[in-house]
């Protein structure tokens, strides 16, 4: 039996929804011309929902894994990693298995959120921001945190906690904006 029941990419078009949509919508619901709306506009620019991006959980000897173009391998331990992929994660998982590791489509398992600001990151985690990517405590749960150029970050966390994390991040932004 295949593992396609793990893969959102194997579902028919129009059947999928992000775990963060409802929470992030509470920001954009506000009328754009109001003061709160302008703020919401600013908040939205700083947040991006990455939940539908392809992710593959890798187990085994990570040295065997050759990431393709557009793929990013995050090593958690010598035997555990997360591969972020641009193309179909189900196919990527199948490809990884040919290298001699086990691979599981984690696209539906992990929600993702990109945000901006080092201070915002420090309100959410005490991971060393100079030593990312890393897995650790983020908003009181376990998450994988990645740093992009400058002050841009990505966090990946269990989708069942997605609504909670989105609420916490919005609340933290609120705390920074309304000092």
């Amino acid at each position, binding site marked *: 039996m295949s593992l396609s029941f793990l893969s959102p990419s194997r579902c028919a078009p129009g059947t999928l929804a992000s775990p963060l949509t409802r929470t992030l919508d509470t920001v954009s619901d506000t009328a754009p011309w109001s003061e709160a709306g302008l703020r919401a506009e600013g908040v939205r620019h700083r947040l991006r929902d990455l939940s539908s991006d392809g992710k593959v959980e890798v187990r085994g000897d990570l040295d065997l894994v050759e990431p393709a173009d557009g793929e990013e391998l995050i090593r958690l331990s010598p035997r555990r990693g997360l591969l972020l992929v641009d193309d179909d994660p189900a196919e990527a998982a199948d490809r990884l298995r040919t290298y001699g590791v086990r691979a599981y489509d984690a696209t539906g398992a992990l929600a993702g959120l990109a945000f901006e600001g080092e201070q915002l990151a420090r309100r959410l985690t005490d991971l060393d921001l100079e030593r990312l990517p890393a*897995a650790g*405590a983020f908003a009181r749960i376990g998450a994988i945190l990645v740093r992009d150029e400058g002050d841009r970050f990505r966090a990946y966390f269990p989708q069942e906690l997605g609504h909670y994390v989105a609420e916490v991040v919005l609340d933290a932004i609120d705390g920074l904006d309304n000092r």
Partner: protein
Amino acid sequence: MSFYLPCPYCGPRPVDEYAYFGEVTHRPGPSPSMRELTDYVYFRDNVAGVQREWWQHRLGCGEWFLADRDTRTNEVLDVLLPSPERVREERLGSPPVGAEPMASEVT
């Protein structure tokens, strides 16, 4: 508790990222007496000093390891991986069930 515990993979991290499973126990062989079994299941040395114990980096890489920790000072003297050879030599037994990660204290 706010000491740093060095994960063999992730390096030193605050202790609240880990789940603690207590001192190592020694699993008796086949057909133990009730006394031997209860010793293994219920009794702990609870030393004031260095003890070998089980930890899992629950909020981080997720891996299990052993640590030699001084229970008086929380100084961690060594961390080791639970290789099957070590397990066999030391006849390591099960950790207590249902130990929760300390993550509820993470702020």
